[in-house]
C-alpha cells in the first residue's frame, strides 16, 4: 500500500526541522521514550519487550537442537526472523514476509552476527553433528517508525537475558538439564542507530510521520568499542559522503545512551 502523506504534514515536519525542532518536541538527536523489559514471555527461553515511543515489539528466543551447516560443522546457528503483524499498522497485511519484513530481519541478523553477539563455537554440542540453533523472532506489535533500532535493542536484550538447558553428551547421547539452565555465551553487545534525512538534516529515531516524508534513511550498527558491524541505507533519495561519515560518529556517541537500557 502506498502511503501518501498530505502536503501540509510534510511541510510542517520540514519547517520544524529547519528550525531544529520536531513535531513531538524532541531535538534533532533525541530518542523518544525507551523502555526495555526482559523475561516477558515465560515459555520463551529469552524475551524482551521494547517500546520506543509508540513503536512496540516483542522479541522471543527459542533454542532448538539441529544439524550444523556443512561448511561450519563446529559452530552453532543464529537465525533471525521478523513478522510485521497486521495489528501493528493499517499498512501491514497478513501473509508471508514482504520485502520490508525481510530487510528488517536481515539487517538485524547482520548486526547481531557481524557484531559477534554470541560465541557460536560454544553452541556446538557434538562437533560435526549437533549444534544449538538459536531462533530470534521479532514480533512487531505497534509500528510508529524506527523498527531497526528497536529490533536490535530487543534482540540483544532478549539474548542477554536468555537461559537455555545445559547440554552435555554422555555415551553419544545428548542430555539436557532443564533444571539448571545456562546463559547464552554472550560475546559483544552490538547496537544500532537509525537516522532519517529530512531537508538535509539527519535526525535520530524517526517517527512514522518522519519516515513518511524522509528523503533517505541510514542505520548503523556498532560494537561497544565503537567499531562498525553493520550498515544499511534505505529510502528513495541519496546521501552525501559527509552525511554518512557524520552518521557514523553520531552513532558511536548515541549507542552509549542506548546501552543503558540493556539488562
Amino acid at each position, binding site marked *: 500500500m502506498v502511503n501518501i502523506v498530505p502536503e501540509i504534514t510534510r511541510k510542517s515536519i520540514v519547517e520544524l526541522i529547519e528550525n531544529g525542532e520536531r513535531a513531538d518536541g524532541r531535538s534533532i538527536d533525541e530518542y523518544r521514550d525507551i523502555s526495555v523489559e526482559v523475561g516477558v514471555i515465560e515459555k520463551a527461553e529469552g524475551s524482551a519487550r521494547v517500546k520506543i515511543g509508540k513503536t512496540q515489539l516483542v522479541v522471543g528466543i527459542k533454542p532448538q537442537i539441529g544439524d550444523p551447516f556443512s561448511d561450519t560443522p563446529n559452530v552453532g546457528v543464529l537465525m533471525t526472523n521478523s513478522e510485521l503483524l*497486521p495489528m501493528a499498522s493499517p499498512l501491514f497485511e497478513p501473509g508471508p514476509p514482504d520485502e520490508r519484513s525481510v530487510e528488517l530481519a536481515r539487517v538485524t541478523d547482520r548486526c547481531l552476527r557481524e557484531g559477534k553477539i554470541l560465541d557460536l563455537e560454544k553452541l556446538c554440542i557434538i562437533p560435526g553433528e549437533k549444534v544449538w540453533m538459536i531462533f530470534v523472532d521479532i514480533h512487531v506489535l505497534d509500528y510508529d517508525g524506527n523498527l531497526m533500532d528497536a529490533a536490535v535493542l530487543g534482540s540483544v536484550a532478549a539474548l542477554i537475558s536468555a537461559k537455555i538447558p545445559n547440554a552435555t553428551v554422555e555415551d553419544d547421547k545428548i542430555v539436557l538439564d532443564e533444571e539448571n539452565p545456562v546463559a547464552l555465551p554472550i560475546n559483544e553487545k552490538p547496537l544500532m542507530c537509525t537516522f532519517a534525512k529530512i531537508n538535509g538534516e539527519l535526525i535520530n529515531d524517526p517517527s512514522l510521520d518522519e519516515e513518511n516524508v524522509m528523503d533517505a534513511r541510514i542505520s548503523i550498527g556498532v560494537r561497544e568499542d565503537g567499531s562498525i558491524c553493520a550498515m544499511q541505507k534505505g529510502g528513495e533519495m541519496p546521501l552525501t559522503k559527509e552525511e554518512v561519515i557524520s552518521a557514523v560518529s553520531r552513532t558511536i556517541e548515541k549507542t552509549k545512551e542506548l546501552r543503558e537500557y540493556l539488562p
Partner: protein
Amino acid sequence: MIIILTNNNDNLRADGRAFDELRPLKIEAGVLEKADGSAYLEIGGNKILAAVYGPRELHVRRIMRPDMAVIRCRYNMAPFSVGERKRPGPDRRSVEISKITADALRPAIFLERFPRSTIDVFIEILEAEGGTRCAGITAASVALADAGIPMKDLVVSCAAGKANGNVILDLSEEEDKEGEADVPIAIMPRSGEISLLQMDGHITPDEFDKALNLAIEGCKQISEAQKNAIKNRYGEENG
C-alpha cells in the same frame, strides 16, 4: 474417634483451583497505539493481544457484501509462544480457529450499518497455556468495543471440560492435554445465546450438560472483567 479432614474440591486440581474456579484473569483495553481498538488479556499462563481495524474499505471484491460489513479474523501464534518453537505462518489449526472466531463474534456486531466494508480482528497469542481460542475471543470483544464498533453485546468465551473424571471449568494446558474432554464456548451474556461451541473428547450427555452450564457460568464471570476493562479504559480517558 478418627476424624478425616476432607477438603472440598479445591485440592483436586494440580494448580489447587476449585472445579468451578477460573485461572487468575487480567484484561486491559486500549493497549496498542495504531489499531482502532485493542485489548491485552492474561488468564493463567496465557498472554494474548487482540486488535481491531475498521470498519474500513474492503478491497477484496470476492468476499464483499453489499448489505453489510464482513468480519475477518486472524488468530496467530507467535513462534515463541509455545514450548517448541512454532514455525511462522498459518497452519490448519489456526485457519479453523480464525473461522470459528469470526463466527463467534459476528452475531454481536451491527454489521448491517457498514455495507461493503470490513472489520478486521487480529489475535496474537504471545504465550499459550491452554484455552487460547477462548481467551482470544474474549480479548477480541474488548478490542471491538475499544474500537467503538456498535455491538448488541460483548461476546465472552470460556471452556469447561472433564479431567480425572470431574467436570471442571477453564482447563489449564495440562488438564487439556491429560483430560478427557474440552468444551469451549462463547456466549452473548445478555441473551445467553451461544455463538461458539466446540467439543472434543469423551463425555456423557449428562456431563456435557454440566460442562455447558459451568462454561456459561465461567463466561459470566469473565464478562464482568471485560466490562471493568472497558470501564477502566473509559475512566482513564476522562480522568
